[in-house]
């Protein structure tokens, strides 16, 4: 066993093992992590743009008031109106994300041997371009519906970046199936997959519902809006329940990259529910259902309050974080199941050929052993 190998085990779709050189994709991983670190702030700034109704602070696109995006006077940008500051800043940050996406594609083509990862990097670039174009169309048509779609697609880009960071990371490449890591380790069944899928679906549905509420059209009827809000609140608690179930199902799977983020999810959704309550309060006043709390009596809503806008924007950004985390957890569930399945099929092959070498004593790693992998 070559436990200290740099090369780690990657089982191809055909069931054969191929090697992935971790050092060769280190730059790709760094770039994907950078994209994650840029896209989440970009979502914050985008959320702030909507919170301040600053989406139309710059009427042209792709330029800014006739200037090339990158040549707009810095002093005017920094010391001009706040709306212009955040809208132009949003565009500049978006452009930086675009450059990083291009770098990811280049790094993937140069370093990455897994074709699907290269495909993912291209998909990220296309998604970033599409998102920028959506933002541009929103401005040029002054269309709130496109603004809503732009707001809903941003989290998808964020999810893609997070997935890319996950699949290029050392914990993905160097991961092994650790059967019996704990005394009661459980294999991940279809139930986990279903719950994971449901969590992703609910997270995105919540985002879409939230966008509907945030970008509500003047002619939306009160009943429709009430139904949206009721669904949004109900789904939030369903999602919270799902994250709890998901954590219970994966917590003893033997892989911390899976159980830990699923634990975070519970906290994220809990915080998100609090942020959602805060968002309602700072937008529409103290709700009647919370009238029993004495602090709400006489609460005064402040239009354009800074703290208020941060609460609202944090609610938007946390939605993306929950979606991305649940997507990564689902991805890791699939990965875990895939590794387990590959090992099992390997065991069957070995058994059928009457090899003396027992897979259980070589490829499978017990909790007492170092987390090493089989080489080719």
């Amino acid at each position, binding site marked *: 066993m070559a436990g200290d190998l740099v090369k780690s085990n990657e089982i191809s779709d055909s069931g054969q093992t191929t090697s992935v050189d971790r050092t060769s994709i280190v730059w790709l991983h760094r770039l994907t992590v950078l994209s994650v670190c840029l896209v989440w702030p970009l979502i914050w700034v985008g959320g702030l743009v909507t919170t301040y109704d600053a989406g139309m602070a710059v009427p042209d696109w792709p330029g800014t008031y006739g200037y090339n995006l990158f040549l707009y006077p810095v002093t005017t940008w920094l010391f001009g109106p706040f709306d212009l500051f955040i809208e132009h800043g949003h565009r500049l940050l978006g452009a930086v994300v675009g450059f990083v996406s291009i770098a990811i594609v280049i790094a993937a083509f140069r370093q990455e041997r*897994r074709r*699907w990862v290269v495909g993912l990097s291209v*998909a990220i670039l296309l998604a970033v371009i599409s998102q920028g174009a959506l933002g541009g169309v929103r401005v040029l048509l002054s269309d709130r519906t496109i603004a809503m779609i732009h707001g809903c697609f941003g989290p998808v880009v964020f999810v893609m970046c997070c997935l890319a960071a996950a699949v290029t990371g050392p914990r993905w490449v160097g991961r092994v199936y650790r059967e019996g890591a704990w005394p009661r380790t459980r294999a991940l069944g279809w139930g986990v997959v279903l719950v994971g899928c449901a969590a992703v679906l609910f997270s995105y549905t919540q985002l879409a519902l939230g966008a509907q509420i945030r970008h509500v059209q003047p002619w939306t009827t009160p009943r429709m809006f009430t139904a949206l809000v009721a669904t949004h609140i109900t789904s939030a608690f369903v999602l919270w329940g799902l994250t709890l179930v998901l954590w219970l199902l994966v917590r003893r799977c033997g892989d911390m990259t899976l159980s830990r983020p699923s634990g975070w999810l519970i906290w994220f959704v809990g915080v998100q529910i609090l942020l959602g309550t805060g968002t309602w309060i700072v937008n*529409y*006043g103290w*709700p009647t259902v919370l009238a029993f709390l004495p602090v709400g009596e006489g609460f005064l*809503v402040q*239009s354009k309050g800074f703290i208020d806008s941060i609460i609202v924007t944090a609610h938007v950004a946390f939605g993306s974080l929950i979606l991305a985390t649940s997507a990564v957890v689902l991805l890791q569930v699939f*990965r875990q199941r895939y590794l387990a399945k590959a090992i099992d099929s390997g065991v069957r092959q070995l058994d059928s050929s009457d090899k003396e070498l027992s897979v259980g004593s070589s490829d499978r790693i017990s909790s007492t052993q170092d987390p090493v992998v089989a080489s080719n």
Partner: protein
Amino acid sequence: MNALRTILPVDFTVGVILVTGLMSIGGCDSTVKQFPSNRVHALVVETSRDVPTDAAMADVEQVVTAWFGTPEKPTWPSEWIELPAARQLVDLDRLQRASGRVYSDKQNRHFGLYTEHCVTCHGLAGGGDGPASLLQNPYPRDFRAGVFKWKSTDRSAKPTREDVSKLLVRGVPGTGMPSFLRVDSDDREALVDYVIYLAVRGEFERKLLDDAIDELGYEDTRPEDDASLTSLVGLSSRNDEAASVPVALTVAQDRLNQIVDAWVMAPEQVIPVPDETGFDALSVERGRDLFHAVEGGIVNCAGCHGPNGDATVATVDFDDWTKEFTTRLAISPEDKAAVKPFRSAGALRPRQIFPRKLSDGVYRGGGQGETLYRRVVAGIAGTPMPAAPVAESSSQDTKTLSPQQVWDIVHFVQTLGGVPVRGDALKSAVEDAESVEKGESR
């Protein structure tokens, strides 16, 4: 990876479904071409007069649109207004700045202000029926009745421009109405103009419909000749002045002028507030007696607000906006079947109105002495809070309150909310100062 082969198509499919769903729910962001008509009032008229209102409503809409424009392009019917001050009641530039789509320019001037700040609660036509209205308690104000709660004027008068402006700055604590203190003052002024515009437009729409039925003879069909409101569409005051004036024009113009004149006259109807009398323990004690109608007093505040303003009295009442389509038509607000047609027409679910719990110290219309004085004198328009009978002079009688008694009630109410009696505050300050002096001398 099989996993990703599954995930990516699934995510893509879900994305397509959701985006399509969003498009279908949200629709295109097309221009709002028309203000929604006041179908609730049309149904009220239809029920109370037992006359169909479809023809009248269609023609009223045409006239209102011709005179007041659309959400994208509001206009002010100056040519039909007689008083010069009323012609300038609102500024057309400000109206156009407040309406339409939301954007801002390089100078940070915001446009589409009503859409940005108000429409989600108050609705496009200011009907208090915006998307979020059903989830508000109290419901957002319906400007179209021309009735405003928080003002300095007589109960039946319009608010002054300053009243509306102050309200935007102050907000309404304990409700969804925000303070727009951080919004630029020019923007606030544009919003004030637009609120007045919507109130005038909405009241004109309501009353012209009444007139169409009551005076112009609209029934199943429109009346003949010059009683038809359609004769007003496209009519200009600069047209042949020698020509005979259609009856419909006379009725509509009279109605419009009556409404705008009321707004112009509002500053003259501000309730005068005499100098505040001493805010001392005696005043508070007198106020307490008046509040609780001790010995069969002139007013009985505790009858609704509860002993010491704790709101423990059970009351069943509704505001005028709800009464319009319920009790005034002999319909019980609890009768869901009877209320249903009105709800289908856009009315919000009837909801009880409760007297303020004064012991919380939260005053939605403002808690200053002057404001509370006016509230006692005029009550709150559109609500069951009545006006108190107040003598103009300081002469004492058993049926009216003197200004001093009103101040006594105000002082008592303020102490309920935690405001210290000034005499006591002064006394304690003097005692503090004395104790400090004694300490220093030691």
